């Protein structure tokens, strides 16, 4: 009964309705927090482009503050793509180079650090700058993590996964692509292979070893529909891939349940006292 075609059809969105809803989410978040707009990091990739486009629809370009935050090894194309996105939607950008901030720590104290550790610090340096700018500008930090990368844990905890509001967190990667085309994200940004651009030549799919299309479909079956690993394999997905996706999803759950508090009383925050933030 399940087939890749049926699953892909299930992942299709009414793009105009979804954009309208997510635009409302950003506008409501800004209103209820009493803030002046949104700050976000613009990487040149499709996720941040879509978040920025939705924020522009919600609040107007003057309330969208996009920061291009390159490291010295970042691909120059990323910055060019980020600028193309800003030009398309008409909001301003500011470039802040994070090389000195990141290098200061590693050069002085941790010269042996590998790519992953360096990449994590880059992601957290960007987060720190965005939250500082949000404080300065009276804004919220707009998130750009999608459902696929959140479920696979393909993110730096307290880095790129940190935000005040995340409009994309319930969209699988192919839904991000679909909405991005709908709202007019420049084609070269939608079409290019996704990359965290933390070191030269890095791509998401190369590093994960899984194509996004497959990851989305397998996650849809397991996370949305509740199928078991064996049931997903029986549909025709490679056993090794399915097991890897399942393992990533399990191992990275800690990244999506932030602030785990040890409960001693009968009024533990978030457990006994679930107070809405709205």
């Amino acid at each position, binding site marked *: 009964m399940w087939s890749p075609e049926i699953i892909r059809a299930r992942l299709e969105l*009414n793009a105009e309705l979804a954009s309208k809803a997510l635009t*409302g989410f950003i506008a409501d*978040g800004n209103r209820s927090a009493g803030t002046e707009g949104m700050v976000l990091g613009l990487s040149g990739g499709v996720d941040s482009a879509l978040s920025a486009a939705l924020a522009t629809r919600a609040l107007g370009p003057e309330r969208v503050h996009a920061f291009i935050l390159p490291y010295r090894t970042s691909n120059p194309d990323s910055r060019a793509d980020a600028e193309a996105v800003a030009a398309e939607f008409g909001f301003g950008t500011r470039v802040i180079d994070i090389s000195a901030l990141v290098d200061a720590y590693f050069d002085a104290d941790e010269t042996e650090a590998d790519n992953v550790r360096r990449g994590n610090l880059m992601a957290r340096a960007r987060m720190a700058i965005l939250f500082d700018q949000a404080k300065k500008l009276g804004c919220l930090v707009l998130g750009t993590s999608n459902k696929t990368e959140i479920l696979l844990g393909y993110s730096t905890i307290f880095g790129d996964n940190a935000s005040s509001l995340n409009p994309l967190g319930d969209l699988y990667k192919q839904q991000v692509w679909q909405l991005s085309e709908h709202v007019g994200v420049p084609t070269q940004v939608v079409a290019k292979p996704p990359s965290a651009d933390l070191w030269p030549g890095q791509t998401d799919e190369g590093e994960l070893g899984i194509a996004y299309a497959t990851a989305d479909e397998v996650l849809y079956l397991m996370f949305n529909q509740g199928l078991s690993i064996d049931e997903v394999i029986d549909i025709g997905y490679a056993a090794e891939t399915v097991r890897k996706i399942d393992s990533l999803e399990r191992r990275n759950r800690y990244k999506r349940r932030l602030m785990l508090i040890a409960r001693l009383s009968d009024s533990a925050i978030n457990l006994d006292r679930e*107070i*809405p933030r709205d």
Partner: protein
Amino acid sequence: MLTVGLAQMDCRLGDVAANLEQHLEWVERARQQGVELLLFPELSLTGYRLLHLTSRVALRIDRSSEVERLADAAGEMAVVFGLVEEDAEGVLYNSAVLVRGGRVEHVHRKLYLPTYGIFQEGRFFGPGDRLEPAPMADRRFGLLICEDLWHPGLARRLAVGGMKILLVVSAGPGRIGSGEQPASHEVWEVLTRSTALVNTCWVLYCNRTGWEEGSFYTGGSHIVRPGGEILERAAFLEEELLVAQVDPREVDRLRWRLPLVRDVRDDIQGPGF
């Protein structure tokens, strides 16, 4: 004929004072359009996803200045709105209140409290245990809250009991798929339309809009004619006051050719109850 209004509004979560002011404005707008019966959504005075704020916004209906102000503002209009009700024993209910002419005419305590998936009502509310007609002068309406409609025996009992117009107030969380309408709304229309068909009655469905805690409400409030045809539908994902004329006599005309309610039987032996 009856002029009805569906106040498809957003609500401020936990802010009764702000919501009350909104209600008073919408009542005035409705009055200017000649509305005789005005519906607000489920928990309209408090917002829906209250969790541990529930007890903090609870109101004693007989002692609440908010309820009194709305009852006074209603005048000759019948106004249905939602609140967290605290009874004399301190039990909390998800209630819909009908006020008119300065008085509380009817209170419906939600009978089925969804406590699954995104819903947590059973943790915070007690379930109601009475189904009664909601009166407006010599008229009587059925009044249900959201999940109550998913248990079709209630609408059936109201229809058999003589109610020709069923009022359903809701805070239905939205989902979007590939369809022309929000996926969550498509499901609701299946339900409201089939209810209007098998019970040969009017269904007035008032849903809210806006966002709470990362979840949105679809809007799409609508009126279904006896037999299941959509008479009017409000916009999705935005506020709207939907006003329409409802003719209770349409129920009788349909029932003359489709006597489903007349033919209901409770004497058939077999499984279930």
